[in-house]
């Protein structure tokens, strides 16, 4: 079970959180997109082997959304950061994908 650092509450068990897929995908202007691009926004998210910045919500705690670097292979947890703040550098440190 992952041990997730909520920026507001500190380290808590994974069961207190819900997952929200890739972070940093802004809601686009729906009318500026082709059908195909809109469908991509709806259904396609990055799912790499390795480090990924993800959205999580501490639903059973403070109820706040935040972002978190996590390695999808090793399940290592990287830095957490608040929405609309600068994204910390990937912990991959240029080694993206090699961990697998």
């Amino acid at each position, binding site marked *: 079970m992952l041990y997730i650092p909520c920026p507001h509450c500190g380290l808590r068990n994974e069961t207190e959180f819900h997952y929200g897929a890739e972070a940093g995908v802004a809601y686009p202007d729906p*009318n500026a997109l082709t059908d195909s691009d809109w469908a991509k926004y709806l259904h396609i998210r990055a799912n790499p082997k390795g480090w990924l910045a993800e959205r999580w919500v501490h639903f059973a705690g403070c109820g706040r*959304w935040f972002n978190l670097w996590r390695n999808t292979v090793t399940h290592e947890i990287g830095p957490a950061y608040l929405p609309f703040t600068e994204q910390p550098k990937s912990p991959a440190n240029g080694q993206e994908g090699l961990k697998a």
Partner: protein
Amino acid sequence: MSEILFIFDDNNYKGQSGEPMAAALLRSGLLTITNSTYHGRPRGVVGLGVEEPNALVQLVSGTQESMRPATVIELAEGLNARSLTGIGALPELPDAARYDKTNRYVDVLVIGAGIAGLKAAAEALKAGHEVLLTDDQPGPGGHLRHLGEALPSVLQDVLTHKNLTYVPRCTATGLYDQNYIVAVERRSDHLGDAAPANRARIRVWHIRAGKVVLAPGAFQRPLIFANNDRAGIMLSHAASTYVALYGVTFFKRAFVVTVDNQGYRDALRLHQAGVQVESIYDVRQDAQGASVDAAKAAGIPIHLHTTVLDTVANAEGALQSIILQDLNTDEIIEAAADLLAVSGGWTPIVDLATHIGIKPKWSAEHAAFLVNHNTDQLQTAGMLAGDFGGDDDPAIFFGPALDDEQAHNAYIDLQRDATLHELRRAVGAGLHSIEHIKRYTTIGTAHDQGKTSGMLTIGALCQLNATAQDGNSVLSPAEVGTLSFRPPYVPVPFAALAGRERGPLSDPIRITPIHQWHVEAGAVFEDVGQWKRPWYFPKPEESMEDAVRRECVAAREGVAVMDASTLGKIDIQGPDAGVFLDRIYTNMFSTLPVGQCRYGLMCKADGIAFDDGVTTRLGKNHYLMTTTTGGAAGVLAWLEEWLQTEWPELKVYCTSVTEHVSTIALVGPKSRQLLQELVKDIDLSKEEFPFMHSRMATIDGTTVRIARISFSGELAFEINVDWSHALATWERLWALGRPYDLAAYGTETMHVLRAEKGYVIMGQDTDGTQTPHDLNMSWIVSKKKEFIGKRSLQLPYLQQAGRPQLVGLLPELGNEVLPEGAYITALDVKPDGQGKTSHTGFVTSSYYSPTLGRSFALALIANGLNRMGELVAVPIGKKLLQATICDAVFIDKENLRRD
């Protein structure tokens, strides 16, 4: 230790309290404990602990837990057990024992209180850490306990250190990410009748550790030879321990067959305990070391480059003689023996490490898979890390070459009765991956999860896969690969995992403030999420059908009342609340005048409708949203997600008030007259209080909010009252309602009433793929503004013809209520080549309507809105019912009744 009596298979046995049950049974001469599950072969004790594949028993005393190895059951007064043939039986009665959970956060968790674990604990203590030490044995010392040796005093001191918590009989069953460990502590079985009644039988530990040290030790492994499963063939370490430590005197003539020096140590122990050790048969060409010298000095004959090929049974099926093979000359020798002690090398317990994805590495030097890991978070120690101690120089050997007939009786997995023959067949069928072979042969899938059979399978595959691939050379185990183990490491009773969260505590129960009244009124309840809601209120002798008809008639012709307190309610405030709701709902809310209500529908971004309800504007910057009973939490989370992650600039605050405000629905043509008796400060007439308006009022000095909302199509009032005053308000209404024959109604009548009006229930009349258009609700989709999901409604696949649409359905026979979920087919459809007919839709809601005097239904039917009047078929079993597609509104299409 004291002598106690216990019962096994209805016979009385004597034993020492605290010793393993297997030891006492062996000491009394019970060699054959059970017959194997599939082949029915007599089997006896093989091992010393949880690796035991044969001697599984079912407890008769206490909790009647099934499939406990007799090697780990500690004898206690009152113990009663019976043998098992592989398959356990669930006890008839619920488990009355108490089970607990505990959570721990520690600096260092050491798993295994053998010498390696104790040394690791000592180091961590020295560095100032708080240490938790768990071990599955009753006492510390690991293999020293089996040797009957005391702990060195320096390690004794570790156990009494103030910063160390030592938990015996506590098995770590799973290692998870970020050093999360689940461990299962057995706290009372070993005390038998003397166990305090209030003690939890098992405590499940949920541990989060800064660092984990894995020092689990190792299992000795058997060898593959013909008839290697007979009672009297044991792992050498187990045999010598039962004889030397537990005083088993049954065995007279022993042979030891070995691949390492452990066989010599055990031969010596047997010899010193008075067993006639006829010979040590060692597969190696050369054997050296202190233990070899000691065996020689004791006069035990040693045969090198030899091994066991086969065995012969006596009349009872137990070991009588063994057939040995000289690997130089292929000469065969038969010798009488009642004990064959087998030392096939050590298999370190890699299970926990593999739980988190660590791949063990093959070490030819150790003839074993090891895990050498040393980081700040995880460290391995002892045999797992390759510290085998002693003077071992094991051969990589898993058994002699066997012919086809011998392979049939050469067992690899004793619990599954899986043999070398089956392994050969798997490889012959083209399987190479050990994970595939495991599933094909069932090896390693029994209660013991391959603790003794896993490594034997790998060993056998070294030969078989090589033959299959390129002829003669033998593969290394490294090339065959290891099995991945999954938690739990040992079986865990479900009762332990449930802990105290059983029965009424298994899930929270939510009740309304009027609940007790419903109970006393004889309501039958249904579960809606965690809520208990009255389903219907039968009078004495009344069937559900009768009750629902009476309730429906009261609502349509007189007056009826329902507890709607479970309705999800979200208080939404802030200067941008109107703008926010415009984006959330498909229709407009910023233009809603204060004091008015509007029905709203919300979609996900993909254009699929997912919740609905009436939202009231209470003030300029203040709305009260209602949601479906089941959808309340999900809708609040949805609102928060948009506010927090997309529109932080909106000043809007959402608060769940479901359990602050109780809602009482008063429904029926006489509802106005009745309510006006209770409410004196406002005029309830339709001119002064129009439909979909909300007014503050006073009932008995309490401020309430009354809204003219109808979920039935009838004249209706929703009384919203503070949760703590709801019961009083309900009781006042009830008393005043007597002259009106006021009826209380439940969810079933509510469903009938709303379905008669074609009102959709999200999740019942939808299956998560309907747009507002599919629900015939295009009228609610605003063309003027943006809202979540709007762009998706333009996508071609949500607009294409043939989508399921919500329609009404009138069964041909008015007394036939169609089953909800029933498939609908076209009338003339013919079965295809597979005898199947394609469906055109399904029934979503179906009831008998007292108002219509017939049955009716709602259904999702392909292109249904354009098929009005069409006759369709509803196959039910062998019957083919017919029904006509119609408008979903069955009564009062003009909406005349609600005023």
